[in-house]
């Protein structure tokens, strides 16, 4: 039994109940969503011991054997990301309690729906099922993007919808090609079929599936929707899109490349390294010229996702690459959440996200939270961003020193724009003395503690990364799912 899979029915049920039961009671929606997100987090942590013990947990829906039925899988790679995403989801729900003051029912219902889709993508062992969960997350995200109901948010939302629907359509078309060529959709079975049979449509199917996922993950050149969307949503949803969606999208890309398509090889690694470098450079260069803090954070998320891709591509040549990739994937989510939550306090207070006009709070927790996030993002030692970037630099030296050089230069640019943002918001602008609620304090202190912990004790993080990398070799996965 995979406990964390039960989170999906819980979240879907609360997404269904909130609009109905919340009509009479104003406070039902936030409490219900918070409870559902907390249950999700508890369930995913409760699954961890079983995964540590037996490496790959498999559950077949309604007792049908693997290629026929739908498999639900939790292995070491996915379970850590499930814990991470449900943790971020819980923090988002907690942070929203005070942040969201109107139209609570639709907001929390959509939040639960988006979270359910993300947990589903991380759990599923079936390509079409992944498409369905992808669409659940996407539709909830399109609606969340238009939450503020002003011209800006509708524009961002319709743009996101058209680009996103094109992306999921590409994914579906690729899935159809794979089914036509190999006659199965189960990830493990598909992996076997691809290893054993030659097919001429394989390259185009691969290209379509990966392009679809790249659009959803916002990898340059498919990134244009992300800054628009993040600028026009409430900050907690910015954290959800920035931290959780990016991790889930990258997970799907890694899962498809490693487990399903068996694509490991020089060509694909080089392509991924190039995509990573372009994403890093474009993201950082665009972030440098932003006046809007949310837009800056959106571009910085894109840029950091580029680091993960670069490290992942280097993994084929050097063992440190994969370690760096998954460790940075975790750190990226934590840092992004910290930045969005601490910047969100000021955005909410000053009702604008243009850095020059923002007001700030005199409470040091908020400004230190942003400072820790900003420095960690740039890879300053003793913070978690440094630990994973160090692995990436080392891996780069083993592959080609130019990659390390580019990574360090982009880090320097990151330092420039994140310190600029910190200075403009927290040092230059007027300070207002307003109390912040305990939930926000808890979130900021907790994320800062995690960030500093992984910075001072990088070994713990590297152990987690090694544990996740165990499942990059797909033989056990295939054996367990089909066996």
């Amino acid at each position, binding site marked *: 039994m995979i406990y964390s899979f039960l989170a999906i029915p819980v979240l879907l049920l609360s997404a269904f109940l909130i609009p109905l039961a919340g009509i009479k009671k104003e406070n039902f929606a936030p409490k219900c969503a918070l409870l559902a997100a907390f249950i999700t987090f508890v369930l995913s942590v409760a699954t961890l011991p079983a995964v540590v013990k037996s490496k790959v947990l498999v559950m077949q829906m309604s007792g049908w054997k693997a290629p026929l039925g739908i498999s639900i899988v939790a292995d070491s790679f996915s379970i850590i990301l499930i814990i991470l995403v449900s943790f971020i989801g819980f923090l988002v729900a907690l942070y929203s309690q005070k942040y969201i003051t109107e139209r609570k029912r639709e907001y929390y219902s959509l939040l639960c729906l988006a979270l359910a889709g993300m947990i589903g993508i991380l759990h599923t062992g079936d390509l079409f099922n992944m498409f369905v969960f992808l669409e659940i997350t996407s539709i909830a995200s399109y609606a969340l993007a238009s939450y503020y109901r002003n011209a800006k948010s*509708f524009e961002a939302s319709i743009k996101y919808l058209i680009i996103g629907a094109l992306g999921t359509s590409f994914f579906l078309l690729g899935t159809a090609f794979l089914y036509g060529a190999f006659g199965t959709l189960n990830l493990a079975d598909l992996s076997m079929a691809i290893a054993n049979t030659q097919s001429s449509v394989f390259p185009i199917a691969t290209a379509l599936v990966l392009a679809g996922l790249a659009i959803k993950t916002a990898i340059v050149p498919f990134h244009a929707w992300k800054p628009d969307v993040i600028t026009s949503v409430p900050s907690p949803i910015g954290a959800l899109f920035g931290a959780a969606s990016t991790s889930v999208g990258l997970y799907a890309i890694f899962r498809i490349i490693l487990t399903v398509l068996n694509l490991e090889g020089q060509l694909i690694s080089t392509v991924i390294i190039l995509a990573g470098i372009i994403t890093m450079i474009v993201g950082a260069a665009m972030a440098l010229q932003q006046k809007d803090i949310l837009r800056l954070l959106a571009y910085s998320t894109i840029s950091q996702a580029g680091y993960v891709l670069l490290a992942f591509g280097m993994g084929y040549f050097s063992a440190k690459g994969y370690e760096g990739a998954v460790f940075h994937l975790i750190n990226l989510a934590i840092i992004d959440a910290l930045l969005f939550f601490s910047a969100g306090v000021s955005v909410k207070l000053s009702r604008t996200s243009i850095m020059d006009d923002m007001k700030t709070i005199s409470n040091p927790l908020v400004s230190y939270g942003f400072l820790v996030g900003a420095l960690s993002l740039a890879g300053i030692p003793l913070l978690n961003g440094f630990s994973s970037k160090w692995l990436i630099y080392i891996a780069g030296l083993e592959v080609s020193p130019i990659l390390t050089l580019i990574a360090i230069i982009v880090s320097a640019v990151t330092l420039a724009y994140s310190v600029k943002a910190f200075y403009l918001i927290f040092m230059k602008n007027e300070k207002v003395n307003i109390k912040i609620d305990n939930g926000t304090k808890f979130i900021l202190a907790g994320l800062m503690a995690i960030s500093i912990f992984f910075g001072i004790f990088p070994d713990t993080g590297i152990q987690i990364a090694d544990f996740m990398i165990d499942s990059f070799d797909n033989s056990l996965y295939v054996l367990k799912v089909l066996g």
Partner: protein
Amino acid sequence: MLAYAVSMILVLIGSYAVLSKENIIKKLMGLAIFTNGIHLFLISIGYKSGGIAPIFSEINFNYLSSVAVDPLPQALVLTSIVIDLSVTAVALALAVQVYKRFRTLNADKIRGLKG
């Protein structure tokens, strides 16, 4: 073979409309054509000329699997149609709101967000 060709032509027409038309409604129609092309493609993968309905009963399983059409693509297409319906519903609702705010549906003129 004809069905494959037609479905790919539909996919191409759909992606052309999404990428090059300016009007948002035309883009959404392009998306619908795109998805329907994929649906036709999926159905034609499972199609068997003269095949029977894939209903599991007293008939020998091996015999059934040789004469019946493949049921999986049909299930996929049904699911996908429902998803497509909800995406289209959200999209049209957003298009109405965009028209109310901007008084135009021309995607090139809706440019509040830049950079």
